[in-house]
């Protein structure tokens, strides 16, 4: 009985432990923020893995959707709950901030999913490397558009999200940001897992194997592409929203093509189409980024070098396209869902 629900138990205990540790300040703020970035990176890499790994397209503009989500959710939060120079007095009582926060983040996700249409619609006809270009162009277009909207700060950036976070803390005195990041990370991994293993989601893998054959087998490829792109970019938007609230400041420059490259690296380090690989590599990559911080500028020589060496000796990434439970079959006894 306990065995079957062990994953749920582990998650509840883990979340409780994280909350307790953050509440009692057993971990310093730096470690806590690294943990939160780890959560955001897990969201980003698993969601990109859905498109690049499972569907077999080559999307390299993921940070653009993250940018949309980050801006929409931070503007919503600041507009609704804080006194701001641009938006004036708060619309709602700041006491509501806690309850509205998940909806704000989800709204960012929905906006990013709509931005995902920018890529999804051309993908009906365009394939392969031409689609890669469209994603890069979409990334540039999003950043450039936000840079040109002066009322939300343009390229100077947008801030004020810390006040919303503080307003949440005033309602119930708990470390809310780690809790929300934890919940949303679990939510994203869960939703991707459910989507890929659903009957509809089998079509995603079918498109990866052979698009023409899939279409002949009555898979509605356009519909699947639209849904998958929108889901992937929507989840990236959620990740972006959380990222904005963790830092308390967003500017378009931090969502440029380099950020997309980082996410790409996480996906291919983990192994294509492997959900547990994407999670694992996001964790490893975040730790590596922080562990090598003392090297300063040489860090960005060492990390690519390490990755090139990994690629030379294990060209399929850490997990290949297997899941953790394929390598350790005993793990399957500990959960009931597929």
């Amino acid at each position, binding site marked *: 009985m306990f065995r079957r629900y062990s994953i749920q138990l582990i998650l509840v205990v883990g979340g409780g432990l994280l909350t307790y540790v953050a509440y009692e300040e057993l971990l310093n703020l730096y470690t806590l923020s690294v943990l939160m970035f780890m959560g955001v990176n897990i969201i980003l890499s698993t969601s990109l893995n859905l498109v*690049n790994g499972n569907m077999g397209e*080559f999307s390299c503009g993921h940070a653009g959707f993250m940018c949309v989500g980050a801006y929409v959710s931070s503007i919503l939060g600041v507009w609704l709950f804080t006194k701001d120079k641009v938006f004036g007095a708060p619309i709602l009582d700041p006491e509501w901030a806690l309850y509205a926060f998940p909806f704000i983040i989800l709204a960012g996700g929905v906006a990013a999913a709509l931005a995902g249409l*920018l890529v999804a*619609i*051309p993908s009906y*006809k*365009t*394939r392969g*490397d*031409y689609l*890669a*270009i*469209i994603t*890069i*162009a*979409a990334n*540039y*277009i999003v*950043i*450039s*558009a936000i*840079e*040109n909207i002066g009322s939300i700060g343009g390229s100077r950036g947008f801030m004020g999200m810390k006040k919303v976070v503080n307003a949440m803390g005033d309602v119930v005195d708990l470390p809310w940001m780690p809790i929300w990041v934890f919940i949303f990370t679990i939510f994203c991994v869960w939703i991707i897992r459910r989507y890929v293993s659903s009957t509809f989601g089998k079509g995603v893998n079918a498109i990866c194997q*052979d*698009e*023409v*054959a899939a279409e*002949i087998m009555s898979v509605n490829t356009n519909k699947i592409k639209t849904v998958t792109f929108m889901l992937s970019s929507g989840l990236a938007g959620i990740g972006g929203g959380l990222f904005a609230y963790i830092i308390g400041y967003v500017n378009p420059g931090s969502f440029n*093509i*380099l950020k997309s*490259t980082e996410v*790409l*690296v996480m996906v*291919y380090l983990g192994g*294509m189409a492997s959900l547990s690989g994407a999670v694992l590599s996001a964790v490893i990559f975040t730790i590596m980024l922080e562990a090598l911080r003392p090297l300063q*500028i*040489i860090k*960005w*020589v060492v*990390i*690519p*070098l390490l*990755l*090139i060496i990994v*690629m*030379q000796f294990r*060209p*399929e*990434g850490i997990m290949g396209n297997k899941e953790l439970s394929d390598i350790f079959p005993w793990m399957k006894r500990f959960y009931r869902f597929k």
Partner: protein
Amino acid sequence: MLVAIFQNIINALQWGSFYALIALGYTLVYGVLTLINFAHGDIFMVGAYIAFFVATFFLTTVGVPGWVALALTIPLTMILTSMVGVALERVAYRPLRRKGANRLYVVITALMCGLILQNANLALLGASRKAFPSMITEHVYNVGGVIFTDLKIAVIVTTILSFFALQKIVTKTKVGMAMRAISYDKFAVPLMGVPIDNIIVVTFVLGSGMAGLAGILFAMSYPILDPYMGALIGWKAFIAAVVGGIGDIRGAFLGGFLLGAVEIMVVAFFPSTFRDLIAFTVLLVILAFRPTGLFGVAKTTKI
């Protein structure tokens, strides 16, 4: 009005020349290996830096007159830059190709190589920008109100000449025939006795040499060098190559000039911050109507 149009056309041709030269390198490597060589923009940056060191060496240490220095710098830079490109191929891409790794892993390796080139440069030479020494004095001409320098004309002419040279190599010589053959069928060609690795090295030499040439010309036109200059231009040149139809050198050439023209026109009529927004929207629309670029041929998929 007419003057402004001609002025913008000259500016667009010059600005598009850089994109065209870099896009030629992208498209050559892509045509042969179907590998998006994302390190290519950074090879362009390395080219500009090599040109900087070679030119300073000739001007200050040896002390030859400017035009001699220029005549020596151009071939030397092209050779050194192509050595960088070949080194990348040898160290990073070839082992992966031998292992038969998925194409996208090679692309990620290329991205990483680009990052290494950028940041190693930053770590070795510091973040301060370098000023490129002037080797020849520019003359400014004014023909009926249209202002241009001889350097601008030289850039445009060099680009067009190198395009025709490349076109000649690819379509008329034996090496070019082998290159086209590899892009047609990678498995049958070695059976015909074509040394596939040598041909790929030649491809990288040609592509990186073009990037080196673009580096010199860029450094002479805009004499400030910084380690991140290659990243943005590289991505945009890749986009230009794809809009032209990647794998086709005519496409890369035209795509480069098209992107240059769009960017210059946007700056001429809108605030300059709109440049990326409008330029990329135009490209997106082009790709939406011609999904394989201007010159690309749609591949028929066999079932």
